[in-house]
């Protein structure tokens, strides 16, 4: 048995042949996954990757991954652009939830769930935000109380992408009310199908219904559901949020096949200008160039931040820089499309030369890219405090037991 790692070039060549022989071509953009069928299709594709030996490229070997490097993953990703891939499994299942289990899961949790995820048998989601919480994640009030050798979960979570199709959710709940907010939390792995769990879908301004709200009514969980340590759930949440920022910012090694949808990826401003006969307009050409430059810089920034953090020249918190920039890029792409579309951004008639209805809808959804995965305001806090070293903002709940902290309803 050899312990040598397969050279990236050879791996890439092998992936090229395998992809050509096994995967169908990339279908056109289908929008957010709104049906169980789409998730089932993703599971099927993931199983195909697993059986072909190309699933979990950066996941540990002992849990079903390949144990290879981000360079291998990047090479595979580039080869896979032309093929249909289970992209909807990237976020949050693979790059956020499974990545957190790699870091913090017990041996049993890793054995049980990681292989299942890589095989396409399990979908994992995040159950973090709460209806009354906003950015104050650690101020959550969903509770898990001890009852003999069980935990009883009650409360509600919201903004969980794809929970309606998931098998498990990583749920952060309060287990101790007599200590400051960060110290009384515990992370649980909750079966979505467990008795007492209700999932409702939320319709967004785009018409999409991938977001969900979950209600927990006396959901019983065993100790084997605890991820990390009891009352130390903030550490688990921090790990998870780190993976989320990496995923949203584009630096995660656990994403396969594509970067996550960042809003600007599908912008066709050049095509829009061409179809609407504006390609000779100097100002439109400047807008197109600016939008293109921004996307190129986004990729360069991801590379720069990744390398600077690895080299110790920037702290890991610098991942928030790419998160903030990605949102800014998405805004710019949306705004440029609206600008180039002109009045047609608000109306669209059959036979019009460009699909400006999509541009109008994107405009409505523009803020999503600065909200999903933690607001850009929180990213700015992280950058100013943990990258630039500016003092922390005053907080009225610091070092105050959570049951004495004022809360709204």
């Amino acid at each position, binding site marked *: 048995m050899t312990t040598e790692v397969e050279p990236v070039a050879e791996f890439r060549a092998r992936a090229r042949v395998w992809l050509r022989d096994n995967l169908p071509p990339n279908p056109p953009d289908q929008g957010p996954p709104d049906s169980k069928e789409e998730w089932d299709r993703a599971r099927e594709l993931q199983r195909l990757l697993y059986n072909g030996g190309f699933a979990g490229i950066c996941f540990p070997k002992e849990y079903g991954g390949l144990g290879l490097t981000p360079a291998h993953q990047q090479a595979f990703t580039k080869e896979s652009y032309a093929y249909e891939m289970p992209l909807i499994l990237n976020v949050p299942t693979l790059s956020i939830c499974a990545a957190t289990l790699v870091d913090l899961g017990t041996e049993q949790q890793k054995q049980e769930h990681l292989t299942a995820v890589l095989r396409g048998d399990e979908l994992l989601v995040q159950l973090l935000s709460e209806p009354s919480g906003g950015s104050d994640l650690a101020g959550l009030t969903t509770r898990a109380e001890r009852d003999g050798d069980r935990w009883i979960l009650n409360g509600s979570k919201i903004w969980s992408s794809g929970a309606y199709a998931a098998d498990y959710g990583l749920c952060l709940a309060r287990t101790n009310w007599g200590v400051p907010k960060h110290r009384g939390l515990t992370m649980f792995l909750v079966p979505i199908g467990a008795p007492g769990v209700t999932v409702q879908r939320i319709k967004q301004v785009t018409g999409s219904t991938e977001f969900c709200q979950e209600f927990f009514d006396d959901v019983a969980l065993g100790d084997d559901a605890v991820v990390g340590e009891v009352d130390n759930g903030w550490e688990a949440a921090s790990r998870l949020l780190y993976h989320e920022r990496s995923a949203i910012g584009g630096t995660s090694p656990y994403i396969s096949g594509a970067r996550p949808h960042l809003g600007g990826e599908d912008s066709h401003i*050049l095509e829009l200008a061409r179809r609407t006969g504006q*390609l000779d307009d*100097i100002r439109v*050409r*400047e*807008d*197109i*160039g*600016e939008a*293109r*430059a*921004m996307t*190129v*810089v*986004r990729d*360069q*920034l991801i*590379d*720069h*931040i990744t*390398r*600077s953090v690895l*080299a110790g020249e*920037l702290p890991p918190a*610098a991942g928030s*820089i790419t998160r*903030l*920039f990605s949102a*800014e890029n998405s805004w710019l792409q949306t705004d440029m499309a609206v600008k180039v579309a002109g009045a047609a951004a608000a109306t669209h008639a059959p036979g019009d030369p460009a699909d400006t209805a999509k541009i109008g809808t994107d405009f409505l959804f523009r803020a999503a890219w600065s909200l999903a995965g933690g607001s850009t*305001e929180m*990213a*700015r*806090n*992280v*950058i*100013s*405090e943990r*990258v*630039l070293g*500016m*003092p*922390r*903002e005053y907080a009225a709940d610091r070092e105050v037991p959570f049951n004495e902290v004022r809360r709204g309803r």
Partner: protein
Amino acid sequence: MTLDLTADQRLFQQTAREFLAETVPVATVRALGEAGTGFDGQWWRSATELGWTAMLVAEEYGGGTISDRPMTELALVAVELGRACAPGPFVTTNAVLAGLASAGAGVGETVAGIAAGAVLASWAVYEPGRGLDIVNALADGATPGDGEWARAVRDGDGYRLTGVKDRVEAGDRADIFLVTAQSADGPVQLLVPADAAGVTVTPTWTLDLVRRTARIDFDQVAVPADAVVHTGAAAAAAVRTQLHTAAVLTAAETVGATDKAMDTTLSWLTDRFTFGRALASYQALKHRMADNKTWLEACRATAGAAAAAVDDDPATAAEAVSVAKSYVGAKASVIGQDCVQLHGGIGVTWEHDLHLYLRRIGLGRALYGTPEEHRRRITDLLVTAA
């Protein structure tokens, strides 16, 4: 910039930083600016001994790189120059050398002299009232119409040159100009001594105190055959290389000046107290600094990527160069202006050093293509590729 630097490159960078700190501290920069001299000739010769003009020059003429990544290495120096708001004809000298590198043995002696700091050369390319578009046109091999461009007319084996060039860096100090002009044979590049008959040099106002420019009038200047550096397609290719060199180094220099402005501002916010607390503790200001930091790192990333792209393959570097020059030019101005605002009134005083960095940022935005000009260039490339 994100440059996976070798130990030798780090030493090179460190040496540049120490040399600048020692020889041109801010007080010296101010004094040079107020004296109207820009820089000291002996100082420039010392600078060239550190290798600042060696990277694009063949070994036989005194050149050589540290690790075969000449643009990356030059960009390292440029960042330090920007941080120091240092004087000197670094950008224009290297732009000239980038053009002469492909010129063959005829200009070898001139190249050696420029690289050694004995001959001061500047690239005369811009013309009054015109931006980068005409440079682009030449770089892309097009021939502008009559009267649009300084003209070189055949005269025996050489040419006679007539026209006006402006924004010529260190033009009032240069010994020789590399002039980009038009001829019946297409674009030409000619070496013209500053003391040749028919050359008139007029210093012009420049935003930066020490990186100064001049206007040069050429009136029927005789250019002998051995001073004709490039013609036709070779001239177009050289202009492109020169433009890329100047744009990348200007972007890198701008990154350095912006970095220093940010450092200065962060110190100010930390040390300054209002309403009983440090300015740095106010979220409204912290968020702006977070934006500025994000854009600064993006500037570093794209300037570094542009230098790397030129090192990797000059023929395909055009987009990366224009992305960097447009992005850095636009964002550095935003960051620099916000640094002034965050300083309050003191930020707009002559006494405070902040304006030195803002001057450098403003010059960097304007020279070798504004953000708008480079954005159009990016679209040109996209349309051509499609």
